[in-house]
């Protein structure tokens, strides 16, 4: 009778798999066994499985540490094996399945597969890191109040790129440690592509803030764009690095997004003073070439400003009531 024995880790990752066509299988530490385990807590002759024509039965060979089901309580001696049972021997786990054990459905290639493959391409990857480094350097240049040479921006550009490479590298390391394929290049490619998208969304946000007045209600909604981008990045990171159900993947990506943005928001909230004597306004300005909407006239501006007085009065009255 055919039987499959899988040596698995405590996280249920497969270590080795054996398919035997026998009616009796011996498991233990010495070399006479069919399945030879090196775990020192296992006896030289530990367990015997034999097929009685109808069932597989387990026979513990008077071992020192015993044999149990995975729950650690049910002793295995004289146990009738079901397909999928996990045995705990010493500190090792053995999973037993029969040939007719059902397998999970085939996972389709995601539609992102082609994007992922494109971003992994060494040339594309190099270009996207270069773009990222260039933007970092340019921002550093813009922020520097004094004149500076090209080489002065090189260090921060490289520094920023290396710093941001920590994220994909970390994800790759995690997947390697959890016995998945590391896929460093793919993680790098996808991450930097999204970092660049985040730069771009920053620029678009500025252009919007610059062009629209505070009457435009969508300015605040735009704040969701970087959050959505980050969610996509985390989803792809987990898609590339780990096997999990799609529901779980969405939960993980959403969780990390929440941790990043929610955490940041919490820190901001806790730093915010209860009352601010300074006005909070949007001071985004860009060069004339970024303007694409016509300006209001003075009348319109005065009319719009008029409504602020009532708002301020309401707020003054509200705070007094508390």
């Amino acid at each position, binding site marked *: 009778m055919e039987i499959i024995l899988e040596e698995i880790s405590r996280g249920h990752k497969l270590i080795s798999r054996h398919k035997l066509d026998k009616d009796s299988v011996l498991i233990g530490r010495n070399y006479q066994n069919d399945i030879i385990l090196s775990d020192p807590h296992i006896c030289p002759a530990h367990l015997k499985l034999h097929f009685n024509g109808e069932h597989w039965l387990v026979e513990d060979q008077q071992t020192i540490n015993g044999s149990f089901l995975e729950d650690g309580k049910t002793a295995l001696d004289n146990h009738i094996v079901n397909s999928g049972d996990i045995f705990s021997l010493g500190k090792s786990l053995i999973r037993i399945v029969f040939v007719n054990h059902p397998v999970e459905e085939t996972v389709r290639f995601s539609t992102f597969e082609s994007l992922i493959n494109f971003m992994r391409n060494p040339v594309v990857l190099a270009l996207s890191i270069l773009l990222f480094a260039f933007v970092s350097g340019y921002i550093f240049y813009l922020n520097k109040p004094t004149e500076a040479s090209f080489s002065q921006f090189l260090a921060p550009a490289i520094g920023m790129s290396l710093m941001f490479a920590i994220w994909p590298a970390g994800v790759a390391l995690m997947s390697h440690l959890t016995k998945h394929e590391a896929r460093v290049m793919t993680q790098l490619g996808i991450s930097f592509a999204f970092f660049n998208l985040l730069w771009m969304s920053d620029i678009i946000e500025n252009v919007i803030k*610059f062009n629209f007045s*505070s009457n435009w209600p969508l300015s605040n909604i735009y704040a969701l764009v970087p959050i959505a981008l980050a969610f996509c990045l985390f989803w792809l990171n987990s898609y590339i690095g780990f096997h999990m159900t799609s529901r779980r993947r969405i939960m993980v990506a959403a969780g990390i997004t929440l941790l990043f943005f929610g955490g940041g928001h919490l820190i901001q909230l806790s730093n915010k003073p209860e009352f601010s004597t300074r006005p*909070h306004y949007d001071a985004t300005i860009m060069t004339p070439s970024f303007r694409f909407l016509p*300006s209001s006239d003075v009348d319109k*501006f005065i009319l719009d400003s008029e409504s*602020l007085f009532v708002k301020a009065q309401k707020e003054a009255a509200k705070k007094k009531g508390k």
Partner: protein
Amino acid sequence: MKGFITLLLVCASSFISNISFAVEQAEEIFKQLAPSLYQIRLIDKASGEKSSIGSGFQISSDGLIATNYHVISGYARHPEKYRIEYLDNEGNKNELILQSVDVINDLALVKRETLADMSFFKLANQVPTKGQELFSLGNPHDLGMIVVPGTYNGLKKESFNDKIHFTGSVNSGMSGGPVVNQDAEVVGINVATSGNQIGFLVPHDKLVYLYKAFKESPPESIEQQMSEQLSKNQKKLITTLLNSSWKSKLLENAIIPTIDVPFIRCWGDSNADKTDALYFAAVASCSLDENTYLSSNFFTGSIEMEFRYMQAKELSANKFYHLYEQQIQRAGPGNKAGKEDVSEYQCHHDTVTTSNQALNSKSIFCTRAYKKFPQLFDVLYLSASIDKDKEALISHFTISGIEQSTALAFTRKFMESVSWK
């Protein structure tokens, strides 16, 4: 400049500085007037100790005493926390009742109990002549009543609300004390000092006006009275400004307004001496030289305007705008005010073209409302030109304690007065 003029208020912990010595004549005057002179103390009810002191003088036989508003402002704003007390020249103490205030001119009337008619200070009928010798009375730094001789130097030119320029040492704690002529008639009230023998007095006619108004009809509530005074003064000020001639002035390639009134004074600066600067910048700022004291952390009645011209040297437009943007990030209020006094600012921003198409700018308007005076607001306007690649003009003003209609009228006129050459 504002910083130099300090109110003559002494808080419980103050330092001892030089004291002027009275001349013989001054001593004579002092002896005669001493019974009508008081130290006014603001007593913190909880601790029972004085939290600030000033001077005051009796102006009627039935116990009405004049002092500075800022001496008793703590009580006017928080009557539950303080009480007002006087200390006379014989060391008697008793409670005072606040009757009326003039926040604009920093005056207050308080009343003591009297058993019989008492002697009091006579208010002068006429203004002193320039150079005339005057005597300032008061209790500097809690050191006891003294008399300081000095001279009358006319009214302060740059003042919207009249102030007498008195050459003589007026020290902290003398606030609210009278200044008399040789006939012992009150011609002014000590209010502020600029240090080094420059003192400022409230002219006596303001007190005469307040006293008369009080006799006719005492105010129903001090808060209401303050609110009306603030509104009236601010309206008068802004109307004066709007009706004065607004002259155009060049700030490099920009045209900015200057208002031709003596009480708005302008200052300027530039970075022309800094050769390594990435852009050239010139600043002109104008402001009203006075403000209205409401409490130690709430001032109002101020106006300031600021214009900043910037021109990129060898700089890309993007970087120039980036540095330019940093210049308009942190505009703040022009007056001190706290959570109990005002709401938070509400702001509006838009890009605006002036009606003569001469300037396209990003404009920001913010306002906050006063909690105790519902018709009054602080406003802040900030505008940054966005029509030239390598030149920029920031125009900015703040006005505190203003009503909505006047604020908007001023904003409109201001916006239309700024343009490129």
